[in-house]
């Protein structure tokens, strides 16, 4: 109905997009060809697509998010190229609009979120001494929902047209009246489908952490990363339902002609802005909290010292996740809500600076009187601290409501949130990836190339974003696709673009680093960093069942304490005898159900009920099929455990 011809269906008319079409097509052909030539389809299906093993799901999350980082990064570089000089005609305004929209959506929802979930999956069960997450099937389903949602969103690039109303898609601009194309519907369904997955991951990890910790690991003995995951997941389950409803209402507006956020019919666009930020603000804390957890682990490990102020840290995490729900209106101080409302939200926002500041002090005093080495994970942490401190400071400046009238919608704001999201979230997740990489894959990443990557990223960051603070103060507003020579902005913009490309080079170094490290694989032991927590007590990579016998936890940094006891010659407690291990069976239902969701979403985007309805029926059918399946688990026999452990060089 919305599509009249093939040229409406496929995005046409732009050489950049044709180029991308060709690249995507060739890549897909290559992948299919390789899988067929090497007869790997069965392997792919059995070992990966249907897996319910948290470690493999984690790896798939990480791979998908790095691909999305590439796409989001390309968007960023296209924008920086367009802005490098005044009056550039590299991108037309409407093309530019869709690029900043997809850049934002992809980086937050399809890069940061899955990378975070990947780390949750790779680390949390190992860190708390569990054999898997609470709901392995659901975990797989969450991944595939994310994946299909992300694919649906990215499909808009070549089919139908990308969304172009900003990453939060404010109505009335995002309503059918002003955005009649399908891009906005791709936005809604891409996020909606992956959002359901995020919500389920939140539930999954709360139950995992609360119920599946190894015996003896009281909550106050739990590693800080697991605490941060708990606080992040609690925030997820409280915030994501709001997103689900908000997007659903926008869809109902667009599809059924309802009037939630329309200009006419009594609709209220401001309600959307309130609702989306009631999710959106907690969302940025959802992604930063686990980064705080990573830094806490890394700082302690590489300072060879206990984390300073454990209780303060826990309290700070929890209070941040609580406060994050009471600050949303600081995203629109300029909406004329009146001084009372603005003062209230300014104060709640500033309040968050307190626990955040405390965390920084605690990290510093973990390093104080430590014995610090600067391997990659620690290097990223050291890059993080000053960056985040300054980014946090500009955040406090933005929270001063009347001053925000001058910062709002300007490049000052852009610089601020990139500083906390790159300096905080991205550096944090990179630090975590470098830290746990040996645990996941059994080999380290090359340190030397890693240092190049780090310095390119770190220097590139400042070169890119410091000028943007100045540009903001010079009155440059966000989302403008070009500017004139008379504006006086071009020098700063040009420098900023150079910084952007430096970060791009940093990313290339990381790709090279991974490929190089795979080629010259340096195998490592189970504990390459002299770690402190349980994940380092088992082989790298961890066997399918994680722990041959469930550990008995005594101390906060239990593995460190165990090593110290051993060094002091304290005799080890006898281990419990091996028993058959109860494991969940792989299942094809998650990927199939998610594919049906994709179908339903695609049908609803184009208003093609002949695709949407079978898709929804498929979803329901898959759920029932799962409900009727009682043959969902199996046991690993003792002799198989013994041979696996022996192969990893362990005496059981």
């Amino acid at each position: 109905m919305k599509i009249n011809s093939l040229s409406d269906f496929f995005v046409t008319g732009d050489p950049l997009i044709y180029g991308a079409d060709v690249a995507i097509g060739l890549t897909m052909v290559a992948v299919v060809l390789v899988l067929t030539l090497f007869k790997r389809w069965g392997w792919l299906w059995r070992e990966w697509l249907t897996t319910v093993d948290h470690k493999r799901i984690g790896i798939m999350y990480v791979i998908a998010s790095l691909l999305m980082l590439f796409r989001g990064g390309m968007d960023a570089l296209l924008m920086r190229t367009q802005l490098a000089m005044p009056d550039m005609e590299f991108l037309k305004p409407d093309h530019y609009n869709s690029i900043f929209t997809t850049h934002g959506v992809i980086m937050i929802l399809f890069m940061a979120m899955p990378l975070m979930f990947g780390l949750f999956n790779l680390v949390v069960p190992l860190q708390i001494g569990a054999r898997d997450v609470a709901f392995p099937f659901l975990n797989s389903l969450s991944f595939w929902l994310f994946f299909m949602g992300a694919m649906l969103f990215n499909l808009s690039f070549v089919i139908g047209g990308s969304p172009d109303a900003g990453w939060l898609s404010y109505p009335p601009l995002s309503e059918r009246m002003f955005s009649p194309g399908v891009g906005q519907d791709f936005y809604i369904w891409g996020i909606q489908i992956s959002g359901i997955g995020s919500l389920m991951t939140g539930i999954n990890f709360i139950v995992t952490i609360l119920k599946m910790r190894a015996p003896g690991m009281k909550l106050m003995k739990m590693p800080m990363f697991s605490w941060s995951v708990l606080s992040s997941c609690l925030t997820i389950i409280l915030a994501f339902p709001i997103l689900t409803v908000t997007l659903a209402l926008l869809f109902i507006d667009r599809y059924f002609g309802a009037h939630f956020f329309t200009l006419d019919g009594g609709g209220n666009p401001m309600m959307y802005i309130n609702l989306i930020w009631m999710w959106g603000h907690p969302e940025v804390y959802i992604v930063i909290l686990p980064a705080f957890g990573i830094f806490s682990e890394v700082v302690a490990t590489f300072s060879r010292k206990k984390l300073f102020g454990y209780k303060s840290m826990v309290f700070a995490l929890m209070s941040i996740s609580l406060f994050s729900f009471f600050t949303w209106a600081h995203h629109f101080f300029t909406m004329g809500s009146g001084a009372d409302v603005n003062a209230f939200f300014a104060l709640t926002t500033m309040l968050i600076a307190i626990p955040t500041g405390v965390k920084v002090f605690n990290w510093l005093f973990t390093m104080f009187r430590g014995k610090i080495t600067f391997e990659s994970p620690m290097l990223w942490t050291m890059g993080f601290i000053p960056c985040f401190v300054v980014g946090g400071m500009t955040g406090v400046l933005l929270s001063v409501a009347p001053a925000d009238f001058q910062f709002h919608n300007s490049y000052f704001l852009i610089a601020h949130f990139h500083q906390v999201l790159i300096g905080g979230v991205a550096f944090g997740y990179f630090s975590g990836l470098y830290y746990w990489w040996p645990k996941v894959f059994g080999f380290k990443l090359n340190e030397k190339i890693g240092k190049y990557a780090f310095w390119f990223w770190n220097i590139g960051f400042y070169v890119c974003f410091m000028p943007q603070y100045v540009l903001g103060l010079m009155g440059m507003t966000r989302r403008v696709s070009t500017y004139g020579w008379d504006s006086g902005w071009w020098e700063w913009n040009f420098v900023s673009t150079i910084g952007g490309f430096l970060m791009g080079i940093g990313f290339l170094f990381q790709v090279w680093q991974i490929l190089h490290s795979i080629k010259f694989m340096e195998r490592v032991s189970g504990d390459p960093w002299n770690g402190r927590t349980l994940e380092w007590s088992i082989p790298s990579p961890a066997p399918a069942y994680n722990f041959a016998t469930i550990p008995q936890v005594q101390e906060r940094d239990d593995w460190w304490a165990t090593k110290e006891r051993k060094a002091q010659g304290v005799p080890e407690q006898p281990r419990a005898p091996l028993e058959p291990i109860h494991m969940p069976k792989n299942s094809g239902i998650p990927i199939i159900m998610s594919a049906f969701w994709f179908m339903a979403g695609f049908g609803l985007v184009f208003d093609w009920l002949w695709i949407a309805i079978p898709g929804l029926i498929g979803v329901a059918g898959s759920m029932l099929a799962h409900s009727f399946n009682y043959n969902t688990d199996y046991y690993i026999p003792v002799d198989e455990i013994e041979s696996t452990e022996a192969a990893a060089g362990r005496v059981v």
Partner: protein
Amino acid sequence: MAHGGNHAASQAHGHDGHHDQEALRMMGFWIFLITDCILFGTLFATYVVLHGSTAGGPTASELFEMPGVIAETFILLTSSFTSGLAVLAMNKGSKRGLIGWLAVTAILGASFIGLEVSEFVKMVHEGATISTSAFLSGFFTLVGTHGVHVSVGLVWMVAIMLQLSRHGINSVTKRKVNVISLYWHFLDVVWIFVFTIVYMMGVK
């Protein structure tokens, strides 16, 4: 990584594992209900904000017919009670009683949905559709979302009845019955809010 099962061989161990898992699932479901609470809370909030925005269309007091709504309320409350009876029957170990009471619950639920659909159809015929005004958008979405929840619950309940007849009462089916019953009570509570906030305060 051969995930073949010698499931039957290790039943002895399996029993313990299942118990743990059923407890986990129960807890997971409680957390899911929290998220569903927030979902409905958000919908209620939008409805409250928009309920005066009738944009020249019909208002709540012109539109709502209480007898039908009271009948719906009565039916749903009764079904909540019968789902409780189903759980009691299960705890007594009576498979027939359990399936019977679940069937009664499902029939009551279906009649609730039937009444609701006919109410909606009538409104639409009177020209009060989801696109008439913001008030009606909020109304149809809130009440409709509850209706969709009930309908999903119905399908699920039938699926559980089939599973009960096949597997009898065991730790897995027991947990499933407990979960659907919890879900059903939850929907009942939501309906009480719908009844109070949408209908009672609407016709006032």
